[in-house]
């Protein structure tokens, strides 16, 4: 099983790389280099704050965009192009296929994020000239961004198992946007009554919560993140991702393909 799983994972990663997805790194570097001198003109002492904001926000946004663009076709493309036929005729279990695709895309995003983080630290060194202890918070912020990727990949993969790429993109993007609203949904639920309240609360908890995974503001101000938050965010992201991926497996398991 591991051999098949790792084969599919690696092949998915290879496909993304050959699809030139890593070229987005060039855009990222250009963005960092362009924004730093711009910011230093505005206020003395704010370069680091702004660099961190630009850097972390880019790592997060670029990754989500890639997750959606690559994720929506993960399964649907293989069904349309019939490449799945020769896969399913082999001792590959359908769930292994889903899991392999998931891990492959996640690997792509993690590699992308790591490379970006390296570039980001280099930029910090160049423009700010030194690193401090508080810069460890930046790594926590990146870790949380990766947790966010875990959830987004699961979501796009789920949609890819039953929907066309366009609709998958719309749904996935919608869930991403809703996920950033964080408190608003729960507040709305708390303010309503009766059946609406139950429904709204249910929806609020089914929707992914990306707000609590976003510690970019804290990282920019050099604040530390509690270990508590790290542990519970990890648990949340893991459980959510596995749950959604399991749903994808369920949908895919008995699906009659074209």
């Amino acid at each position, binding site marked *: 099983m591991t051999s098949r799983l790792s084969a599919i994972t690696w092949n998915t990663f290879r496909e993304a790389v*050959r*699809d030139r997805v890593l070229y987005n790194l060039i855009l990222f570097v250009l963005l960092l280099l362009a924004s730093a001198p711009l910011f230093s003109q505005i206020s003395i002492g704010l370069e680091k704050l702004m660099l961190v904001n630009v850097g972390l926000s880019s790592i997060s946004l670029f990754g989500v965009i890639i997750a959606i663009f690559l994720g929506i076709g993960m399964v649907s493309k293989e069904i349309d192009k*019939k490449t799945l*036929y*020769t896969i399913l005729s*082999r001792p*590959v*279990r359908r769930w292994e296929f889903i899991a392999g695709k998931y891990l492959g895309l996640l690997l792509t995003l993690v590699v992308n994020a790591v490379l970006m983080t390296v570039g980001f630290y280099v930029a910090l060194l160049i423009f700010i000239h030194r690193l401090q202890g508080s810069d460890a918070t930046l790594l926590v912020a990146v870790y949380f961004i990766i947790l966010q990727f875990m959830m987004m990949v699961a979501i796009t993969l789920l949609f890819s198992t039953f929907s066309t790429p366009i609709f998958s993109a719309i749904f996935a993007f919608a869930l991403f946007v809703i996920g950033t609203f964080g408190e608003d949904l729960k507040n709305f639920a708390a303010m309503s009554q009766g059946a609406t309240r139950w429904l709204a609360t249910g929806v609020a908890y089914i929707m992914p919560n990306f707000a609590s995974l976003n510690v970019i503001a804290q990282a920019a101000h050099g604040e530390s993140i509690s270990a508590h938050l790290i542990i519970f965010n990890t648990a949340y992201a893991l459980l959510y991702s596995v749950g959604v991926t399991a749903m994808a497996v369920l949908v895919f398991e008995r699906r009659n393909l074209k």
Partner: protein
Amino acid sequence: MLAIDIQGLSKKYAVGFWKKHQRSALKSLNLSVETGETFGFLGPNGAGKTTTLKLLMGIIFPTAGSAKILGKDYLDPEVKRRIGFLPEQPYFYDYLSAPELLDYYARLSGVSASMRKQRIEQLLGRVGLSDVGNKQLRKFSKGMLQRVGIAQAIIHDPDVIFLDEPMSGLDPVGRHEVRELIQGLKDEGKTILFSTHILSDAEALCDRVGVIHKGELRGVGVVNDFRSSVAEKTEVIWLGAKALSAVSDLVTAPHSTGETVRGTVQSADLDRLLEKLRQQQARLISVTPIHGTLEDYFLANTREEKREPGNS
């Protein structure tokens, strides 16, 4: 042992806007293939050949029925180690090279690391793709893709091989090469089930054929039987168009081009026809007995009215 044993396999699709009507793609298929046999699955487009193969591969699920391959349930993943499949007009991951693709599939089929490299080289040679190097599949011609397709179907040395229209879209050279490959596999004792609508290929390669039409298996026959049947009809070509009126009751479907007339006559009426032509002073050009062909069998079983299996 039966290599393939299909029992009552059926597939219905719900069609229409409200999904109310049912369309039968496959109606209760009963079919068995012996080990080492090469079985040809014949039928017009849309007859249900591809549906059957998709069912057997677990790409779609049946509405009724079951099947066994090599004695085990066809959906058992372990059984899949010993089968190979080439889909119709296949598309492979075009960003991979041929060796990379075969390596990927070999891993998925459980070929051990130590054997993989060797087998890949071997197979690429066998299908005539030794010098493609690292060229990506997106640059391959149709013929080359088909050969890669066959390579991936047998990379793990399966015992049973399923091929869906393996000759489709190939030029005569390509078709010849694929035919040779299938013959080679046959010689190795593999069980082969392939679907096609090119009758000459079926005739050349298969031990038995089954004709399927509109989701139903209309007939199964041994190929050799067709070859040895006594000619029922005879084709006669003569010079002398004016003779046609005298023999019109004997000759079916006459064609005349200038003075040359060509027609078919029942073998039993041959002598009478020749006598009449002599009387009309027509000049014979050729007399050719027509053996019962696979084509007849095929056409007979794909006619609109139902016929009993076994008749031709």
